[in-house]
Structures are given as structure tokens and as C-alpha cells.
């Protein structure tokens, strides 16, 4: 069942680490969202709270319910149960000018010129065409596509077309940007550029929500994540809090291969080549260190590593979901 970590509008999630409880109002608040298709629950009781100005990731394997959740948040489809509020509004279309959306299935009119395509997407959000064209030129130039302003979409490379669509998502200067799998289909350089762009948006106070099945993007960018698997959200909160859910990992290298000191290691310890790996004991590292020294283990190196988001994902969503996530990410790279 989903973790209820939301507050009422204007409050923050309780585990939003390091933030005062009422510092930022919520850009998005969803409670108990349920959506079924043909008798199958695609989304099953999702709770999400995203403060304004945050970069928030919805992390899960393909088919977990990410896109359906985003579509419900945006009002493209209505939930069967539950409520959603975007900037306090129940009907997201009522504040269409404040939102920018990049769907997973990229779509542009192939015969449109770049400048017109961007201006059209702005016009859909209420930006006058003339102003949209002016901003389109400015955006295209800023992102190194000034030379393509009057080219038709069909004449662009896939990466360029994706950038044009992203610029169309931003041309009306929204306060909330929702990106569905924005990194898929981009090469490493363009993924890096997109990360920079997302950070820049957040610095300007824009709330960014994106779905992804690549943990590293979420880990690098997000202050909050919702982990979604099988239509449920077993975790929603800060990335830090997710990582803190599992203990830090100890990595130990010794000169001695055998000895009495081995009994000092916790039962979860696993040998991995020359190393031992195990969770940091609750009693801390000092008692263990003492016994290893007394047992003449011959410590060559010892490090304590904080758990990554991947470890947190495995612990929260389970091995199966993690394996599928990994497979999806590999598939996307291929």
C-alpha cells in the first residue's frame, strides 16, 4: 500500500528532509489515485506530494503505472477514485497556462517549421502566436538550434526534434513542467544537456516532475521520488530518506583469509572477491573494528558507503521490480 506522506495543500511531506514543514506550498498533491483499464488496476492508490520548485522523479519499470499517473495528474484522464490537485486546482485544464507537458510518445506535425511548432504548442497554452514565434527564435538560438528555426520538423534529426518539442513544452514559461520519460531516445550528450536544463528550470522556481526507469537520472536530479511498481507507490518522499531506509554498507579488505576474527563479522556478510560486504552493524563500526584488530585480520581497507537509490529501490520495491527496471534501462540504452 502506498505510503501516505502528504500534507494538506500548503504543507510539506513529513519526511521531506531538512525543510521546514510549511516553507513551500504543494505544486501537486494526489491522494488515493486509482485507475483501471479493462478490469486491471493500472494505478492502485497512488499518493504523491510535490512541493513547488522541486525536481521530482517518478521511478519505476515499464508498465508500473508512471504514465497513467502523470496523465491523471494532468487531467488527460480522470481517476476512477482519489483526488488530485495541481496548484490547488482539481481540474488541471483550468490552469493549463501554468503547465508544460512532454509526453513519452513524442509528437510533432512533420510539415511544420520548428518555429511554428514551438509557437503552436505555446498557443495551446494560451501564448499569442506572435509572442510564441519570438520566444521560439530565442529558445532555439539559446539551445544551438537557431539554424534550424525555419526547417520543417521532418528535416530534423530525432534528437533535434525532441529538443524542439521540449522547447515547445517550455515556451509559455510554465510553473510546472511534467516530462514523461524525457531521457529515453537521447544520446549521452543530449541527456547531459537535458539534466542541465532541468536544473536550470528548478533554479528559476519551476517545479519539474519526470518519470524514468533510469535510477541514475533520478538520483542525480531529484530531491524527491515516488517509487512505483505494479501500480502502487511503496515509497514517496525525499531521495535522502529513501537511501536512509537501508543501512550503510561496509566494504572490508583484509590480509588474512582465515582466522578467529571471521566470527566478528555479522551473519549478512558476503565475500565478494577479496572483499567482504555487509550492512553497518547497529552498534556502529568501532566494536567491530576493535575485534578485527584483536583477531589480527590485517585490515587493508575499510570503507562505509551510504546506500544508493538503487539499493533503496531494491529494498522498497523488491528484487523483481529492480530487475525489470534494470532490463528496461538496458533496453532503452540498446
Amino acid at each position, binding site marked *: 500500500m502506498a505510503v501516505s506522506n502528504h500534507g494538506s495543500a500548503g504543507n510539506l511531506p513529513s519526511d521531506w528532509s531538512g525543510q521546514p514543514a510549511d516553507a513551500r506550498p504543494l505544486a501537486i498533491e494526489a491522494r488515493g489515485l486509482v485507475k483501471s483499464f479493462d478490469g486491471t488496476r493500472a494505478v492502485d492508490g497512488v499518493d504523491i506530494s510535490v512541493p513547488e520548485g522541486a525536481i521530482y522523479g517518478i521511478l519505476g519499470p515499464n*508498465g508500473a503505472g508512471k504514465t497513467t499517473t502523470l496523465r491523471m495528474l494532468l487531467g*488527460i484522464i480522470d481517476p476512477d477514485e482519489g483526488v488530485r490537485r495541481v496548484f490547488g486546482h482539481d481540474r488541471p485544464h*483550468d490552469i493549463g497556462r*501554468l503547465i508544460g507537458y512532454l509526453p513519452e*510518445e513524442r509528437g510533432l*506535425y512533420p510539415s511544420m517549421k520548428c518555429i511554428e511548432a514551438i509557437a*503552436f504548442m505555446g498557443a495551446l497554452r494560451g501564448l499569442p502566436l506572435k509572442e510564441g514565434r519570438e520566444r521560439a527564435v530565442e529558445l532555439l538560438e539559446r539551445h544551438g538550434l537557431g539554424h534550424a528555426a525555419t526547417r520543417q520538423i521532418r528535416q530534423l534529426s530525432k534528437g533535434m526534434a525532441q529538443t524542439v518539442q521540449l522547447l515547445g513544452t517550455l515556451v509559455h514559461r510554465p510553473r510546472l513542467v511534467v516530462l514523461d520519460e524525457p531521457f529515453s531516445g537521447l544520446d549521452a550528450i543530449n541527456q547531459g544537456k537535458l539534466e542541465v536544463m532541468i536544473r536550470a528550470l528548478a533554479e528559476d522556481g519551476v517545479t519539474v516532475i519526470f518519470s524514468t526507469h533510469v535510477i541514475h537520472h533520478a538520483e542525480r536530479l531529484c530531491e524527491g521520488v515516488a517509487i512505483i511498481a505494479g*501500480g502502487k507507490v511503496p515509497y514517496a518522499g525525499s531521495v535522502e530518506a529513501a537511501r536512509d531506509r537501508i543501512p550503510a554498507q561496509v566494504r572490508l579488505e583484509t590480509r588474512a583469509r582465515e582466522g578467529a576474527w571471521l566470527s566478528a563479522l555479522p551473519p549478512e556478510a558476503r565475500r565478494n572477491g577479496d572483499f567482504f560486504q555487509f550492512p553497518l552493524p547497529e552498534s556502529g563500526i568501532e566494536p567491530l573494528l576493535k575485534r578485527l584488530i584483536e583477531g589480527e585480520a590485517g585490515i587493508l581497507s575499510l570503507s562505509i558507503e551510504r546506500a544508493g537509490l538503487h539499493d533503496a529501490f531494491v529494498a522498497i520495491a523488491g528484487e523483481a*521490480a529492480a530487475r525489470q527496471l534494470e532490463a528496461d534501462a538496458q533496453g532503452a540504452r540498446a
Partner: protein
Amino acid sequence: MTDLPLRPRLSALEAAWVIARRDFVAVLFSRAFLFFLLGPLFPVIVGGLAGSIGGEVQRDAVSVEVGLAMSPADNAKMVAAGEQLAPQLGGALPLLRAVPEAADEPAFDARGFMEARRGNYAAILTGSLRSPTLVGTEGQVARWQGPIGLIAGHATAAEPAAFPQVSAELVATSAASEKSSRVQTAQIAQMLLFLLTMLLAGMVLSNLVEEKANKIIEILAAAIPMDAVFMGKLFAMLAVSFVGIAVWGLAAGGLWALGGDAITQATGFNPANLPAPAVGWPLFIALGVIYFAMAYLLLGALFLTIGSMASSVREVQTLSMPVTMLQLMVFFLAAYTIKQPGSALELAAIAFPLSSPFAMLARAAMEPELWTHAVALAWQAAAVVALVKGGSLLFRKRVMKSGGAGREKSKKGARLSA
């Protein structure tokens, strides 16, 4: 970076306008529109050729010539009598021509000649003027027995019959002729409306197919309400269709100005001779335009609803077939009820939204009342709105079930959920 807009969203009308403007410009300046404009040329050319060839074949195949195989004197008297009666009876008489094979053959076997499929006669007349025998198939004999008897009687009369001069007093119209004439106007108007609707509604479908192929529908659905998307698309296509009709109208007008007489002579059809509709020509044309718009919007809304629910271009095309068949059926229904004004069937055709514009246009040709049109138009407009609302509701309920991986992904989701 962020602007604080004066109004947080577009009104439904503004949203529809954004869609309509894009679609109108995109369609109008596309190559497809050029082909679309040329579209009616092909059926006209094919129809003209087929009609011309068919006419030739018919002329060759259907003979109204009756062969004469009597004595040369009787043959000559028959021909002369036929010529005398022609001004009175005209087309009711057959062409009479002596059979050359029978000229020097007293024992000419007309039956054998016909059965051997020689010559191109509807029947052959043998015997004498006092006792003529018509040899031919049952149908041809039944058809020509009377006229041949009349000619033979005239040929044997001691004195040719005197035909009194019938003087003429013309009236502009009569109830019977007016009704039958207006039926013709109603039929032509209905046919024109049907052809235009079918031709142009196909364009809505291609537009939606394009949208499906471009995968842009989700961007539209996220930005503005789906009924505004539908309305925008419908009115854009309607505007495009008016441009198309204007171009065709101008082309037809120009063609008529250049060679109207030749066309009339070739086709036997002169629009100037069409009987005036009951509501008068100006109002009839205005109603025709409005009913075209309604028929187009109704069919277009149906196509859009079906098209938006389909998950692939192929599905769009498959699903449109039943709608096309339905449209054919409602056209036949409306056409059938032209001659049954006030009947339950006509009322049903008026009440059913898809056939209503056709039935009402026929009514405009036949009946002078105008209030019925106001009621029908309000009803049709309500049906358009209901179809658009229903379509967008279905879209929101049934479409967008999964993300990029489509239905496959949906199944995966089901597995995960299980």
C-alpha cells in the same frame, strides 16, 4: 522564467480556434488538398465516359426498327402511313424498314430469319395489310402489335383519317406537375448533399489519421479539453470544405459559361429548367449550405469519435467502414421518403440526426413551411454537440490506456499488478 498569466486557461472557444487555425492552414496548403480538389474530376470523367459508351451500346443493342417483309407495295404503303402518323404519335411508332433479304423472296421465312439472329429488327411484319403478322419475341410483339395495327389500318383506309388541330392553352403549373417537378429538385439536392458530405467527411478521417501517425493527440489532450480539440478539427475541416466547394463551384460556373449549351445538348440536363423549390431558390440555397454544414459536422463528429478511439491508423480505417455504410443507408432512407411527405418514415428520417439534413433539404424543396427547419436545425446542432461531448468522454475513458509501448506495455502492467 515563469510568467504569471492574466488568465490561467484558454476558453473552450479560444482552444478550438487554436486547433482550427492550425488544421485549416495545414490542410489548405498541403498537396493532399490539391488532390482532393481534383478528386471530383475523376468520377465526372469516368461517369461521362461510361455514360457515353453505355449510350452507344444501348443504341446498338436496343433496336426499335420493325422490318417489313410484305409485298413491295404493302411495304411502301406501311412506310407512307407511318410517316403520316409520326407528327401525331412520334416516338410511339417504330422505325419501319423493308427487309432487303425478303425483297425478292416470296417464301421469305421471317421466323427462321429471326431465330437465326440475323438483322437487327425488333420484329418483322409479314403477310398483307389486311392480314399482317408480326414475328418477334413475346415482349417485342406485345410492344409493337398496337402501333403496327394502327399504321396498317391507316394504310388500308380508303381516306386518310383527318386529325383535328388541337389548340393549346398553357398554365404555369398544376398541383400534379409541381409536385412531380419538385421531387426532381429534391432528389438532385439530396444527391449533391450526399456526395459532398461523403467526399469531405473523408478528409476529417485523413486528418485524424495524420494526428494518430504524428502522435500529437496527447499533447493536445493535455493542453486543452478534448471537446475543444474535436470542435476545432470539425470547424477547420468545414471551413476547408467550403473552400473546396467554392473552388468547385467557380470551376463549374466557368465551365458552364464556356460551354453550357454543349453540356446541355450532351447530357440533356439544364439546371435552369429545374423546377423552383417550395421555399424559393435563395432560401433553398441558404438552407442547402446550412444542412450541408450540419450533415458534415454530424458525420465528422462520428468519424472523430471513432477515429480517436482507435489505437492505430489501420483501426481508424477499419472502423470508418461501418460509418460509411450507415451513411449510405440513411441517405437511401431519406431518398426513399421524398415521395412520402408526412409519413412516419419521413418523420423518422427527420428525427434521426444523420439522415435529418437530407430529409429536411428534400422538405425545403417540397414544402414551403419554414418553422420546421428551425426546429430541425436546433435538433441537429444538439446532436452535433452531444456527439462531440460523447466522443471526448469516450476518448478520456477509453483512450490513453498506456504509455509509449502501447498495449504491450498495458499487458505488462497487468502482469505486474497481479
